């Protein structure tokens, strides 16, 4: 599954629009299948989870990152390496809790919503990119870092920026050394 970096780059350039259009068609079809926005959001999250648990191996193989020693390093890794590798964007990370286990990724540019101007009126609470949340959650769970990932702000709903919140759930035994992210 791991490809040499050069070929990966040209794959990105070719199929960027196709990927965005495919994702849009997926969301539109889910909207036709489910009446409630919450059902669509749950379905997207579940799909993302399935992608994430498989994507993490590809990510670790391609990026060959070192062990992450803290939650903030993990969040930085997600933002600067993973997002850059798969979506070509680099969100900014900010820590939003004193305990150091809540982080938020602020995306100033989201390629998935390139063609979507605004959500249709009857879908006001749809989280269009909920798949991303599922991917992050699935990937973190496979490296034994359970987390809750949700959208805190969404530009499609009228907020200024798109913000994804990652809350690392504390495990019962407190371990000093985290596994490789």
């Amino acid at each position, binding site marked *: 599954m791991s490809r040499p970096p050069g070929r990966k780059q040209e794959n990105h350039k070719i199929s960027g629009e196709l990927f965005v*259009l495919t994702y*849009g068609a997926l969301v539109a079809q889910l*909207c036709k299948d489910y009446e409630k926005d919450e059902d669509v959001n749950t379905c997207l999250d579940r799909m993302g989870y399935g992608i994430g648990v498989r994507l993490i191996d590809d990510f670790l193989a391609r990026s060959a990152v070192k062990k992450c020693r803290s939650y903030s390093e993990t969040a930085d890794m997600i933002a600067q390496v993973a997002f850059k590798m798969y979506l070509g964007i680099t969100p900014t990370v900010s820590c939003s809790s004193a305990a150091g286990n809540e982080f938020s990724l602020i995306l100033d540019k989201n390629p998935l919503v390139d*063609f979507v*101007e605004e959500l249709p009126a009857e*879908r006001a609470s749809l989280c269009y990119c909920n798949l991303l949340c599922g991917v992050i959650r699935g990937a973190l769970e496979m490296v034994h870092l359970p987390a809750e990932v949700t959208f805190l702000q969404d530009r499609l709903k009228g907020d200024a920026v798109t913000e994804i919140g990652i809350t690392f759930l504390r495990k019962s035994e407190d371990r000093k050394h985290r596994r490789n992210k």
Partner: protein
Amino acid sequence: MRRRRRLGGAEAAAGPRAQHRQRGTSTALAMATAGPRARRASRERRPPPPPHVTRGRGGRGKMAVCIAVIAKENYPLYIRSVPTENELKFHYTVHTSLDVVDEKISAMGKALVDQRELYLGLLYPTEDYKVYGYVTNSKVKFVMVVDSSNTALRDNEIRSMFRKLHNSYTDIMCNPFYNPGDRIHSRAFDNMVNSMMMQVC
């Protein structure tokens, strides 16, 4: 040549929409057969145009009076005109211009199909307005009505306006929540069309 032939037979074998035209036809016939110089002279002899048109003429010259997007099945997806009192007249003008569009498409279709250009050019002139047309390969038509007194508007400017319209239309098509055949309700498209329309206070 083609225009004169069509106008000559306007009363006899006109398209279904053009048969409704009565008063406009004779004037258009006179204008068309008169020749370009006589047409311009007769325009100058007319009384001065109403104030909103004068303002447009002094402006940047990239201004249309009415812009419409027509679907393949010939119903309007989007139609926006300058908010004067006679908006229905623009709707009617666009409707009748669809005949000319169909004629141009079929005429060019008999020639080499791959040489058919998207920009159709001037569809027909009336005494007040000129109507331009553009057809995409999916048979979606863009019709633009421009004021006749706006002589600064050149052909390549009209072409660039149609290109912008086409680009905005493809952006709308890429929206996953837009079903082809729906009416167009897009803020970005509205802004782009507003930038092309004549400013009327």
